[in-house]
């Protein structure tokens, strides 16, 4: 059983507390992604799970057993580091086999296991090479292989893709997803890239400054962000935020005009709307302004619009995007609006659809 539980997990470096009591339950076989901006405590959390960092307070339990005082090697975990940490002086075979050095398995079995893993990762022809002779993606796979070979209950990944270029990233993302489907281990995956988070996770944990902001499936956090931080962090380009004054299910917009809300609220609110959800409209617009920049993305084009509510990003059809300098009027369906309390940033509960 590789159920993983964090209970009030806290980390202090000297005086400063960098992790303020994290609570999280991860089911056996679940793929959980930790995201958040740089310095929010993702790596620290992961390293405490691995046993590389001392736990200041709280517990880490793996398979129901509190492992706070166990050495990393006794926790039945494997970890893939951001910079791979594969040994430059060892061949791929040795690197992968390194994870088995401590095991009492007979030699022949070890060899078999290495070959097996190499096979899964499609690296059999590369076994005799040294890391310097590998491409970035191949190195990444060696690091994963070293983790896999031990067949651990829990895999920990710390930003394993951040050193790769975009093309390779997409490809590796897919391989990790496939790996998970095949071996069914519990995986905790750290990244600061929200696309990775979205595509890989069963559940996403969004962190900020040592606190968890929201835990949920990719769909949940995308569709129902718990607060403005999550709303802005998930989705690229970021969600637009428009200040407004709400009274019941309607809101007064900064540029004048009013709009219906999907939820009842009072006082200053922030209206969040994703660039994808903004459409040119003829009637009453949510925002209106002059296009300042156009970014063609291939299938779509992003337009940046200077409005009374600040700069707004919207996705326009690639074939007929508005000209730079032209004025556009953009609106959104009421159900695509996210309403947040301006003071606390917390999302206001939706009227059930």
């Amino acid at each position, binding site marked *: 059983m590789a159920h993983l539980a964090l209970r009030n997990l806290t980390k202090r470096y000297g005086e400063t507390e960098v992790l303020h009591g994290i609570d999280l339950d991860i089911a056996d076989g679940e793929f959980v992604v930790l995201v958040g901006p740089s310095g929010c405590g993702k790596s620290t959390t992961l390293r405490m799970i691995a046993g590389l960092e001392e736990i200041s307070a709280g517990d880490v339990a793996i398979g129901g057993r509190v492992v706070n005082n166990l050495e990393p090697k006794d926790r039945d975990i494997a970890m893939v580091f951001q910079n791979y940490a594969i040994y430059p002086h060892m061949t791929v075979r040795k690197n992968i086999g390194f994870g088995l*050095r401590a095991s009492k398995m007979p030699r022949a079995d070890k060899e078999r296991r290495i070959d097996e893993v190499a096979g899964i990762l499609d690296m059999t022809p590369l076994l005799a090479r040294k890391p310097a002779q590998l491409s970035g993606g191949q190195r990444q796979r060696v690091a994963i292989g070293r983790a896999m070979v*031990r067949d651990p209950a829990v895999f920990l990944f710390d930003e394993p893709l951040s050193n790769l270029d975009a093309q390779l990233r997409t490809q590796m993302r897919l391989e990790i997803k496939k790996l998970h489907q095949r071996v069914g281990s519990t995986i905790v995956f750290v990244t600061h890239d929200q696309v990775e988070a979205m595509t890989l996770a069963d559940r996403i944990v969004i962190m900020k400054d040592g606190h968890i902001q929201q835990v949920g499936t990719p769909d949940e956090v995308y569709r129902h962000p718990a607060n403005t931080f999550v709303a802005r962090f998930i989705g690229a380009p970021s969600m637009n935020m428009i200040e407004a004054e709400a009274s019941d299910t309607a809101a007064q917009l900064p540029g004048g005009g009013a709009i219906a809300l999907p939820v009842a609220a009072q006082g200053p609110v922030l209206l969040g709307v994703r660039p994808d959800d903004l459409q040119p409209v003829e009637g009453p617009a949510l925002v209106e302004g002059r296009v300042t920049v156009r970014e063609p993305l291939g299938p779509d084009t992003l337009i940046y619009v200077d409005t009374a509510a600040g700069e707004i990003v919207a996705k326009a059809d690639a074939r007929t995007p508005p000209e730079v300098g032209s004025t556009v009027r953009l609106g959104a369906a009421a159900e695509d609006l996210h309403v947040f309390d301006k003071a606390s940033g917390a999302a206001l509960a939706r009227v059930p659809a």
Partner: protein
Amino acid sequence: MFKNLTIRQKQIAWAWAFLAVPVIFYVVIRFYPTGNAFVISFQEWNLLGTRSWTGLDNYVKLWNDPVFWKVFINTFEYLLIGTPISLLISFIIAYHLDKVRTAHGFLRMLYFLPFMTSAVAMAWVWRWFYQPVPTGLFNNMLASVGIPQIAFLNSTTNALPAVLAPAVWAGLGFQVIIFMAGLRAIPTSYYEAARIDGVGWWTQLTQITIPLLRPTIVFIVVFSSIGFLRIFDHVFNMTTNNPGGPLNATKPLVLMIYETAFSSFDMGYAAAQTVVLFLILLVVSLIQLRLLRSD
């Protein structure tokens, strides 16, 4: 003129402009005297009088000089004992010092202090340490546990290691610092990965630390080899009464050169010895660097 050069030619011009003064310096201050030594090695000269050509006499004399062969062997003994031992000790110290955080700077200074202290003064202290009872520290310690006396310096077998010890001791601090630098350049994630994989410290040391430290090791090997092949100060100061003794048991090549030049004033002979030393050093260094390059 300069304007019309290609970019590459301009680079070359700059390089030589930068090197101009140093090259003149090295040619005049270093190569010229070195060349001089090569010339003198074919001459006889007592420093006071005129020089006269003697062909290969000095080399023939060297070849037939039993002291030279003894000294030749000693010189390599210094190299072959000194380099590995100082390498090993300084590595062990650095390895552990690297893991210590409490009063780290203080400990480091303790190890570096000998490197900074006057060799003359230290040699005297060491000589006293080596004395027989009642004065010698080491022999007194041996005596207090009932072990028979050891003739450290007054022995043809023990003297060389005994003289080498202070040299190793004094150079340790320098090597420790370089090793620590090397150790700290190894990313911690390698060790963390190893901890997660559950390998022991010995495996970490032999499979990770040492292979990754190889560039540092080579750096130290080359420089400490040059140092031990050129050992002089420590031997001279440790054996002032009987330089290189007893019975030339501790005499290195540089000391022989020094004596030949400045007590016997046989400059030609000293120059011939210098040429031999130069060749030994060159060959040893090139071999070491070759081994490094063939990596």
